[in-house]
C-alpha cells in the first residue's frame, strides 16, 4: 500500500500540468511564465505542459493583483481543478498587490482569495525562479501526502 502511494506521488511530481491565470498583471510576469515554455528553458523536459483548461490542470499559476471583478473568476477556476492541486502566486503583485495595493478596486495578494502554496517574488521573477517555485510546490505536495494524518483530513 505504501509502495503504491509512493508510486502515485512520484507520478504526480513527474507530470505537473499548468494553468496560467492573469489577474490583471502588467504582462511582465506572464511573458516570463511563457518564456519557460520556449526552447531555451523547455519545461516539457520535466513533463510540465501549459494546458489552458482547469479540468486538466494540477498547478495554478496566478500573476497580478486580485481585484473585486476577477476574484470570482479566480475562485471558480480553482474550484474547477480536480485535487490534488497547487496554487503558485507569481510576482510582487500576486504576493501582496504590489504597487497597486492601495487602489480602491484591489483586494490584495492572491492569498486573500485562495490558499497559496508557493510565493515567487520578483517584478517580474526570472523564468528560473518560476520553475523553482513549481518544483518547490511539488515537493510540498509530496510531503503532505507522505503524512497519513494530513491525507485523512484532505
Amino acid at each position, binding site marked *: 500500500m505504501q509502495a503504491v502511494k509512493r508510486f*502515485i506521488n512520484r507520478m504526480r511530481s513527474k507530470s505537473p500540468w499548468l494553468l496560467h491565470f492573469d489577474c490583471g498583471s502588467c504582462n511582465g510576469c506572464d511573458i516570463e511564465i511563457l518564456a519557460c515554455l520556449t526552447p531555451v528553458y523547455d519545461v*516539457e*523536459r520535466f*513533463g510540465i*505542459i501549459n*494546458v489552458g*483548461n482547469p*479540468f*486538466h490542470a494540477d498547478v495554478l499559476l496566478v500573476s497580478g493583483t486580485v481585484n473585486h471583478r476577477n476574484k470570482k473568476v479566480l475562485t471558480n477556476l480553482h474550484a474547477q481543478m480536480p485535487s*490534488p492541486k497547487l496554487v503558485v502566486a507569481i510576482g510582487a503583485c500576486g504576493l501582496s498587490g504590489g504597487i497597486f495595493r492601495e487602489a480602491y478596486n484591489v483586494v490584495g495578494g492572491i492569498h486573500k482569495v485562495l490558499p497559496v502554496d508557493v510565493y515567487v517574488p520578483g517584478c517580474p521573477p526570472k523564468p528560473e525562479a518560476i520553475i523553482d517555485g513549481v518544483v518547490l510546490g511539488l515537493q510540498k505536495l509530496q510531503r503532505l501526502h507522505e503524512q497519513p494524518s494530513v491525507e485523512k483530513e484532505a
Partner: protein
Amino acid sequence: MTRTAILIACGLIAGPILGGLVSGMDRILTARMQSRIGPPLLQPFYDVAKLLFKESLVVNVWQVFCAYCYIAASSIALVLFFLQSDLLLILFVQAVGAVMLVVGALSSTSPYSHIGAHRELLQILSYEPLLVLVVVGFYLETGSFKLTSIYAWREPLLLKLPFLFIVLGYVLTIKLRKSPFDLSTCHHAHQELVKGLLTDYSGPFLALTEIAHWFEVILLLGICSLFWATNWFGMAILLVATYFLEVLVDNITSRMNWRWMLSYVWGVGLTLSLVNLIWLHQG
C-alpha cells in the same frame, strides 16, 4: 482456445504499452524538431498514471459512460485485429468508439466541448469513407476481408496499392490528431478551443480517452503494416518511415479549417482511391 486467450491478452497489453511508447517517441521527435530536448520516453505513462489517481470531477454522468464505451470499442477493435478477424468488422467497431467520444463531448454544456465535438464529427466524416475504400482495395487485390489471408498474400500490397497507402496516410494524420487536421483537439499547446473535444473530460476519464487513443494508434499502424506483410524488416521500415513523416508533417504545417479539410481530403483522397481501384480492376 488457449491461443485465442493468449492473442486477446497480447492485444490488451500491447495496445497501451506500444501506444504509450509510440506517443513518447512522438513527443521526443517533435521536441527535437523544435530544437528542444523534450520529455522522457515514458512521459505519456507518467501523465496517464497521474490522471488515473486524480479526483474525478464529472460534468455529466453520460460522459463517464461514453469514456468507458470509447475505451471498450477501441480495445475490442485492436483485439479483433490480433485475432486476425474481418477488417470491415474492425473498422465498424473502431467507428463506434470514435462516435462515443463525440457523444460524451456533446453531453456537457461547455461551448468549447461542443464545437470540438462538431469538428470531430466532420473529421470522422472525412476519413471514414477513405478507410473503407482502403479496405475495398485490399479486397480487390487479395479477394478477402479476412486479415489471415491479407497477411498471407505472397507479395507486398504496397506495390499494387500505392495510392491507397497515401490515402491511408491522410486517414492516419486525421486520426493521430496531427496538423493540418488537428481541428477538434490537439496534443500541443492550447488552441482556440482550449482542448476542444477533450475539454470536459478530466482526471481518470481523460486518462481513459488517452489509453483508448493509444489503442487506436496501434490499430492504424497495424493496418499500415498490411501494406508490407511479407517480411518483418520491410514492415518495420514502412511503419517507422510513415510515423516519422506524420511527425514531420505535424511540425511543418499549420491548422486549417474544416471546409478545407473536407474538400481537400475528399477531393484528393477519393480521386487517388478511385484511380487505384480502377487500376486494380483493369489489371
